[in-house]
C-alpha cells in the first residue's frame, strides 16, 4: 500500500503481540473499514482489509494456516502477505504495512484520511 499525496500515513500501535492468538486474528476498527490483523504460528504478523475479494466476507473470522486464511463464508483461500486469492479464485484484498517492535504490533494507517482506504 503506497501513500497517496492527499493522505498522510502514520505508524500506530495496535496491541501487544500476546493479544493476538497464534494462527488467529483480531479486528481493528478503523474509521474507513475494519482491518484484520493476523498472526502466523510464530511471531509473524500480517494485516489486510477485513473484506474478502469474493463477497466481502470478514477474513478475520477465518481459519489461519501457513501464510493463508480460509474465508469463513465460502472458503476462498487468501494469501496473508499479499491479499491475493489462491487459484482458481481470482481477486485481491488490499493489505497494510505492519511491524513488530518490542512485543508491540504497529500498523501503518492513513492518519485523518480524506479518502477511504479501499
Amino acid at each position: 500500500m503506497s501513500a497517496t499525496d492527499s493522505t498522510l500515513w502514520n505508524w500506530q500501535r495496535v496491541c501487544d503481540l500476546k493479544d493476538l492468538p497464534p494462527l488467529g486474528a483480531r479486528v481493528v476498527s478503523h474509521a474507513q473499514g475494519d482491518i484484520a490483523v493476523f498472526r502466523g504460528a510464530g511471531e509473524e504478523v500480517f494485516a489486510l482489509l477485513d473484506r474478502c475479494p469474493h463477497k466481502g466476507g470478514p477474513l478475520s473470522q477465518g481459519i489461519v494456516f501457513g501464510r493463508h486464511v480460509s474465508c469463513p463464508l465460502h472458503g476462498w483461500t487468501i494469501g496473508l502477505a499479499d491479499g491475493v486469492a489462491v487459484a482458481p479464485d481470482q481477486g485481491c484484498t488490499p493489505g497494510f504495512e505492519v511491524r513488530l517492535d518490542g512485543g508491540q504490533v504497529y500498523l501503518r494507517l492513513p492518519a485523518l484520511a480524506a479518502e477511504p482506504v479501499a
Partner: protein
Amino acid sequence: MQRAKLVVVGNGMAGTRTLEELLKLAPDLYDITVFGAERHANYNRILLSPVLAGEMTLREIMLNDEQWYRDQGITLHLANPVARIDRSRRCVVAADGTSAPYDRLLLATGSAPVMLPIPGCELQGVLSYRDIADTEAMIEASGRHSHAVVIGGGLLGLEAANGLRQRGMEVTVVHLMPWLMERQLDRSAAQMLERSLADKGLRFLLGRQTERITGKDGHACAVVLKGGEEIPADLVVMAVGIRPNVDLARAAGLHCERGIVVNDTLQTHDPRIYGVGECVAHRGLTYGLVAPLFDMAKVCANHLARLGIGRYQGSISSTKLKVTGVDVFSAGDFTGGENTEEILLQDPGGGVYKKLVLRDERLVGTVLYGDTVDSAWYFQLLRDGTNVAQIRDHLMFGESHLGNTGHQGQNRAVTMPDTMEVCGCNGVTKGTIVKAIKESGLFSVDDVRKHTKASASCGSCTGLVEQLLASTIGGAYAPQAAAQKPVCTCTELTHEEVRRAIRDHHLHSIPQAMAFLDWHTPDGCASCRPALNYYVLCAWPREAQDDPQSRYINERAHANIQKNGTFSVVPRMFGGVTSAAELRRIADVVDKYAIPGVKVTGGQRIDLLGVRKEDLPRVWADLDMPSGHAYAKALRTVKTCVGSEWCRFGVQDSTALGIDLERALARMYAPHKVKLAVSGCPRNCAESGIKDVGVIGVDSGWEIYVGGNGGIKTEAAQFLVKVRTADEVLEVTGAFLQLYREEARYLDRTVAYIQRVGMDHIRMKVVDDATSRLELYQRLLFCLEGATDPWQERIAGAQSHEYEAITL
C-alpha cells in the same frame, strides 16, 4: 550436500505422473533426468482417439510440455531411448551415447503394439496405433487414400476404425473372435455395439483370420483373409494387442515375466530400480489402462520420497469406448461364474443392455450398453465392495431411483446442455467443466474442484462431476475407492489411519499428531485442522485440550456467522417446549440489542438473526438460556410432538422422552451435526423418519430408527431395534451415537457413516452385544460428564478477545 539422482526411462503417462506425485511430496530430494523415446513431451495418450476422429487437436492433449520439465529443473532427453542399464556402475546409456548415473531408477517404458508376423507386414501403409507418430500417419493417409482395414475389433481397433471413418475412409474391421471387444463385453452387448457402429458406416468381418497383406510398389493395397477373400486396403492398422516393453530390463538381468516383476512398493528385484505403468507385472497381472497406473504412481512416489507409506495392491479397472454417440462401459468380473448371480436388462429395440454381476451381496462386475449414466456409481459400489443387499431391488435402475430426491437426482450428465449449471453454489456450467477436463488434463474430482470450483462447496453435485469425468475421459476415470481417500492434501493418510494412530499412540494435540504422522504442511489447512481437533478430543476426552483456532468460526464464536458478518443466536428449547417467561426474556433481548430478525426455525426453536459479534456475550447473559449449538457439529435439536399428554392418538409421552434425550446429549460434539426426533405414535408428527436418530412410540414401547437425513439428499432412517422403556431408548441412542463419534469420518453425517460400515455392524455393536452397548454408552457418559455450557463460559469471560474489536 549433493542431491540423490533419479533417472526415469519413459516419459509417458505413468512415468510423468509418478514425477508429479513425487514433486508434491519431496520437491527437492532428487536431481531428476528423464529419457523419452518419442520426440514429444508428455501427452494424454488416451485422447489420441478424439484427435484421430478430428474432435480434438494435438495441442489440446499435451499434459506436461517441455517448459514444465524446465520449471521443475528436470533434465529431459527427447527422441533418445535408453539402450542399456549398467547396474554395477549404476548408470543408463542412451541410444546417442549419453549416459546418466542414478541412485534410483524408474522404469516406465509402457508397451508396444503387437505386429502380426504375416507376409506383407513390412509394407508401407501398415501401421500400429500407439503414439502421436502413428496418429499423424493415419490422419495423413486418410487424406490421400480411401480404403482402410483395421485388424482387431478390441477397444483400440474400434476407436481407430471410427476415427478413420470420421475422416471419410471406407473402413473394414477384421476380427478373429466371433464378437467385438470380447475381453470387455459379452455377446449380447457386443452385437448391439456392432449394429450401432454398422449404422455409422463401419463394415465388420468377424471370426476371420488375416493371412497376408499384398502390396504394389512397396505399398499395401489389399488384405487377404484365410479362405482367399481379398479386401482393398491402402491403409492397414494392426490393433491386435500390446506387449509390455521389457527388453531393456531383461537385458539388465531384472526378473521379468510378461512384464517387469514388481512388488507392492513397485520395486523390481533390484531395490534401487522401480517400475510403473504398462511395462510392469504386479502379482502376475499387467494392466493396459491408465487408472491403475495412477494408483501405482501414487504409491511409487511415496516410496521414492522415502516416506514409506502405502502399498499397491492391484486395481479393478473399467473400460469405456470413446466413440461419440455410442456408450459402452464394463468393469470388474462381468463373465460371472461360480457363486455369482446376474441381474440382466436387455432391450435390443431400445438399444439398452445392462448386466450386473453379484457375489456375496456385492457388485463384482458390470456391462452397460446404451445407458451408461450410472457407470460411475456402479464402479464406486464395486471398488468399495459396498453391500448392496438393501438396494438390490433398485440397483438396476440406477442411483436416481434410490429415493434420492436431492440435487444429484438430475442424473443425466451426458444429455445435459453445455450451458446448464452443474454446481449451484459456485455457478459452474457443464461446458466449463468439460472444457477444463479436456484442456487441463484433469483426472479426478479433486482436480476439477481445484480448477473450476465445481463441487467445492456443498458437494451435492459431486455425482454429476463424476459422471462428467467418466463421460469425458472414459476408462481413465477411476473414482477413488473411498477407503483410500486421504484426509486432505496435507497427508496421504486416510481418516481411519489418522484416528487409529491418535488412539494407539496417545496423541492428544494437533501438533503432536502432525509431527507423529509426518504432516507435509507445518500447520495443516482449513480442512484437516478441524478434523484433527475433533479426533484428538474424541479419543482423549477430558484430557486433550480444545484448539479454538482449529475450529470453524461458528464453533469458535458459538454462533452462526451470517452473510454480512453478523451472527445468529439460537437458544436451546428442550424438546421444543418453552414458557411465557422464556418468551418474555427473548422479546426483551430483541428490543434491548435492536436485533433485526426473529424467526421460528425448521427445528422447533427461535432464531435471533443479525446480532453484532461484540454483543454476543451480553445477549447470552440476558437470555439466560443454554446454547442451542445451532452452529456446531454437535447435538442440534430433538424435535418432539405433543404425544400422549394431550394428543388423542398418542400412546407414549414423546415430549418427556425428547426432553430427557436432549438434556442427556446436549453439549455432545460429533463428526457432524446430529438431529433427533421423538413421535408419540406412528403418525410420526415429529418426522422421526428423517433424523439421525428417530424414535417412534408404539403401544408396546419405542421403535428406534437411525441414519435418516432431511438435508441435501433425503434419506429415510433405517429400523434399528424396538425397546420397551424410555431408559432403554437412552442407552441404545447413546451407544449408537458414541459408535458414530468413534468411527465416522469428520463431516460424515450418520447416513454416510452407516452406508460405509453397514447396518449389520451397527446392529452387532449396539443391539446384539449387550456388553459392547454398555461400554459405548459409558464412554459417552464419561465424555459428557462435567461438560459445561459454552455460552456460560463466555459470559464468565472465556476467550473474551474473540468478541472484542481493537479500537484505535
